[in-house]
């Protein structure tokens, strides 16, 4: 048992470190390091521009999408090299957030299902950040039941005509392309009538509207489709096989988000280490210490769980199922942590924004936190996944399994 690199890993790490040290946009390092849930933007510059510039620089030097094949803009690296890169990239990795969907979900789906010519055309600019992609699956009527989507695709000559509405689309307003899951046959059970496409987000009939979140910010969009035409050669997978295609995408989403999610603990521990309460240092208050200790072991438990997965990668093995706990644990934990951080501030905890303690870091976290228990799979869906896929327990009883989609009820009452 050790935390040491193999000689090859050490060499790779040294090369990556040297390149990053010479090339990273260091002027933003401090700001990026201080970001936390609900507060990530750069004050001094447009984060999109900085991110695109950094991604392009990486791509030009062969450091973009490391695990992708070289012909599609990657480096052909091993999974462990990808992890080492992330470790070395450190706070600059925050700049990759706008590419996560494209690189983590759209890219792999294209790689698995698109025609060779499309792969060669679309993947390299996706890798280099010149083109940004989004994922168009969720719908207002769907929610956790992703396959309950209603956006229609109807064949018209060599094209498909799309009508409907998508929601929770990260980055749709700055995306160039998207992958889109549609219903092509509403007369068969819901999982069987779906088909996947990719499309140009600038196509006529696509309208993007930002969603204002409960926190006040707008990280997501609604996307409306009105008679949008997609040529059949942009279909991904067979007609009616969209659900299986989407599973490739969703698998990637859950593991990617799980790895990136934060617990708020380092921020809280740092805060408590210097905070004075009414009758002494917070860190010497037994109640504070007890809470911190309980969160500390969750945070370290998640950290070392992910180390176990990385070790598996390093040995060329497939990581076990234990990584599936990350999002579930961190999601509600960050909400509790933020709530407690405000509690420690007393009545003044209510103040948010620039006038607040730490410029409102924990207030922003509290307001953003409810989203963490929903996005990328609700807590309830995550528990189902653990129970079913890890523990082998039975699925929920599916009343809509053999029912034609258009016969499923859409309203619970009246």
């Amino acid at each position: 048992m050790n935390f040491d690199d193999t000689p090859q890993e050490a060499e790779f790490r040294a090369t990556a470190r040297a390149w990053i040290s010479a090339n990273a946009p260091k002027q933003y390092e401090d700001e990026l390091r201080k970001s936390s849930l609900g507060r990530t933007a750069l004050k001094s510059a447009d984060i999109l521009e900085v991110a695109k510039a950094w991604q392009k620089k990486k791509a030009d030097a062969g450091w973009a999408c490391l695990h992708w094949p070289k012909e599609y803009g990657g480096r052909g690296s091993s999974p462990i090299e990808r992890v080492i890169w992330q470790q070395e990239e450190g706070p600059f990795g925050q700049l990759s957030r706008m590419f996560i969907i494209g690189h983590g979900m759209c890219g792999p789906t294209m790689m698995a299902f698109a025609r060779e010519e499309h792969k060669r055309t679309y993947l390299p600019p996706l890798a280099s950040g010149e083109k940004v992609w989004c994922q168009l699956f969720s719908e207002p009527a769907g929610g956790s039941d992703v396959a309950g989507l209603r956006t229609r695709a109807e064949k018209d000559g060599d094209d498909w005509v799309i009508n409907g509405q998508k929601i929770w689309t990260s980055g749709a307003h700055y995306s160039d392309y998207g992958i889109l899951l549609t219903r092509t046959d509403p007369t068969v059970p819901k999982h069987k009538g779906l088909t996947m496409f990719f499309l140009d987000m600038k196509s006529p009939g696509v309208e993007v509207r930002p969603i204002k979140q409960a926190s006040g910010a707008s990280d997501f969009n609604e996307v409306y489709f009105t008679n949008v035409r997609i040529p059949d050669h942009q279909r991904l997978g067979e007609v009616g096989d969209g659900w299986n295609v989407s599973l490739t995408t969703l698998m990637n989403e859950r593991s990617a988000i799980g790895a990136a999610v934060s617990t708020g603990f380092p921020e809280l521990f740092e805060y408590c280490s210097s905070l004075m309460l009414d009758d002494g240092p917070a860190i010497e208050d037994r109640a504070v210490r007890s809470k911190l200790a309980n969160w500390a072991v969750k945070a370290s438990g998640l950290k070392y769980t992910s180390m176990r997965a990385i070790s598996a990668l390093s040995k060329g093995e497939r990581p076990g199922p234990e990584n599936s706990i990350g999002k579930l644990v961190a999601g509600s934990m960050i909400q509790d942590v933020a709530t407690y951080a405000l509690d420690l501030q007393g009545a003044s905890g209510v103040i948010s924004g620039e006038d607040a303690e730490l410029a409102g870091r924990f207030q922003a976290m509290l307001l953003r936190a409810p989203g963490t228990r929903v996005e990328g799979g609700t807590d309830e869906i995550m528990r189902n996944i653990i129970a079913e896929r890890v523990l082998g327990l039975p699925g929920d009883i599916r009343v809509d399994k053999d029912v034609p989609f258009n016969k499923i009820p859409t309203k619970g009452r009246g």
Partner: protein
Amino acid sequence: MNFDFSDDQKQLRDQARKFLTEKCSPKAVRVVLDGKAPYDKELWKGLAEMGFLGVAIPEEFGGAGAGHLELCVIAEEMGRANAPVPFSSTVYLAAEALLIAGSDAQKKKWLPAIASGEAIGTLALFEGKGNPAPNNVKLTAANGVLTGVKKPVPDGAIADFAVVAARIGSSGRDSDISLFLVDLKAGGVEVKSLTNLDPTRGQAEITFKDCKAEPLGAAGEGWSILTQVLDRAAVLCAFEQVGGSDRALEMGRDYALDRIAFGRQIGSFQAVKHMLADMYVSATLARSNSYYGAWALSTNAAELPEAAAAARISATQAFQHCAKNNIQVHGGMGFTWEFDCHMYYRRANAMALGLGSLSYWEDQLIDRMRKKNAA
């Protein structure tokens, strides 16, 4: 035994609910939420006309002369409606301080103005981080003028007057603190609005610069009066929190009945059912603790300090729990600005801090239970 509100009080509650359903729809709340008005003036006027602002103010001072139980049922409805008005600062804090310690002249000046909706009042206690404690009061009073900074002051930017806690000595005893009454429109103050978790209730920073003030209550009695005010406000806020909890629970329940996923009402999934059942449990515990607080408040019982702390803790927990899990029941939609869930989440988290933190009240409760046991 009649550990319940009377039929008259329940009728008053129904009346308040009906009034607020009409006058304080979520749409109306959003005017303030979106920053288009500092508070809902029309609603405030309506509340005055209904007699709700002065319900616990004696008739001789322009109120309805009903009592605190009547105020409790109205508080519950204010919480349920998430009313964007300075009710708690004016009615629970400022008016109660006047009722406890005001001179006849002070009462005559301000209480009728509160009841009629003409004056908004507040309590200026906090000075940044920390909970209610004499040591945290640094603002000084000398020769009838106040010098120092208070923040956050609830509804401070719209208040006409404030009850201000000030330091008159440095003996380290509670008697270092006196209360003062300040007419905020008379000059000597600088008021700055603060961004806060719950935009439907403003918070401000008020700087007192050689500001003229008249004493409220006897010199050195400030902390003892404040303790009583905070205990009363704890019970009244608890009713607001109970009302908010119930509303958040109802919203979740209704959504669970209406929303279909996987071909079923989502309320047929045990994960959702049981989450709602647990919210009901919290809300019920909070309600029962609050009823006890109401009894103690209305009878001025020796049990008030303990009952107030228990109501405060239980109601704070319930509202935070229900507001948070109401969002979870709603899934992604619950996290949109468009849905009303976040208004209750904001209010729940702001109210959890307003009279001092949950940790502070936990500590208070144990102190008070020990005192009772020792007695």
